[in-house]
């Protein structure tokens, strides 16, 4: 499984939600990302699966409150190299 730096992870998240790279930081909330709507959620599910072979349960997906939670998931699954 590829192991990203924090900056690579933030860039990847920005791509998933079709946001400019600099807009996404660790503290960005889900509500602050226009692309993280119902369709964005589908893109996220597919991207996690395709890039990292990560499948999340529905309640885990719904429970993601922002970038920090997503980074935690990546870290727990060994996809993120640093805290």
């Amino acid at each position: 499984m590829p192991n990203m730096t924090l900056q690579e992870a933030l860039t990847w998240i920005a791509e998933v939600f079709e946001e400019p790279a600099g807009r996404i930081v660790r503290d960005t909330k889900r509500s602050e990302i226009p692309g993280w709507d119902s369709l964005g959620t589908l893109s996220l599910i597919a991207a996690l699966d395709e890039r990292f072979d990560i499948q999340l349960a529905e309640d885990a997906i719904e429970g993601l409150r922002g970038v920090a939670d997503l980074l935690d998931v990546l870290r727990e699954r060994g996809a993120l190299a640093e805290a």
Partner: protein
Amino acid sequence: MSRHSIEGLRIAGVSTCVPARIENNLADDLGFDPDEVRKVVQMAGVRERRVVEPGTTAADLCFEAAEALLRELGWERDSVTGLVFVTQSPDYFLPSTACMLHQWLGLSDDCAAFDMGLGCSGYPYGLYLAATMLKAGGHRRVLMLHGETPSRFVAPDDQATRLLFSDAGSATALELAPDAPAAHFCLHTDGSGHAGLIIRGGAFRDRTPADPRDLWLRMDGAGVFNFTIKRVPPLIRDALEQAGCGVDDVDAYLFHQSNRFIMKHLMKKAGLSEAKVPMTIEDHGNCGGPSVVVTLTRCLGAERGAAQRLMMLGYGVGLSWGAAVVELPPSARLLHRDYSAAFPRQGAPEAGA
């Protein structure tokens, strides 16, 4: 583990029938925000949908498909001893709509006719049931009809479903053929997801729901998406293993046309060549389980020089999913038509044209 290989059946013909009326997703009069529509259309891949006129049902579409097929094949009506109508949009709760179709088609009393209530997984399940009826049930010829009118159970103002779902009917004629190659089936259920795609009201759990929206389909998009990603790649792998063949040995993978984005994801995940995954979602939408067979008739050539090994994949409401690997002989007739109410129905017609 639910895997079965069944010998002795041959597909004699497949016929599909879709409504003539077309709804274009980018039309102005649907009442949705144009930018939102463009996003949904981009992801789902549905440009146009086929939608029944008021009063037309899945039974009407399937009747026309079946009548066209029986005439093409020249089958005597009393040679058909099995009639299965696979649907989640029946004309009635009671009787089985298959009984009405039995009358319309002029089949004999020596016929077992019944409905089977499955949707997205309906085609592989329907083939499986027909195969068992032929192999072990004493039948020689079975008609398996599979039709849906999702346009009639999605809320007109629900963008996620209105822009996706379309209508279709089909008939598949199967006959006993001792020399035919085996067909292979993998069939699964996860009932814990039964509420992910559901019409809560109108049936016997809640005949007159307090919330009128309970008469429409409720879909948990993310949950169904998640299910598809998790369950379909192993299904493809298991079906190949059951059929004893490799991924390149299948000539065409006929997917339930759920959503273009998810189909492309599944193709990549399962290592399928794009050339072997025909799609009809762009101009036929997601017509539920019958989308598998619409893709078959629309994309496989009417003239085929050799037998084709096909994998049919149905996945969704239930949650139910299944695969069938079958050989389509070059002699099998493939028909497709727009609904025109062209054929007379035997007996008193209660519905339809």
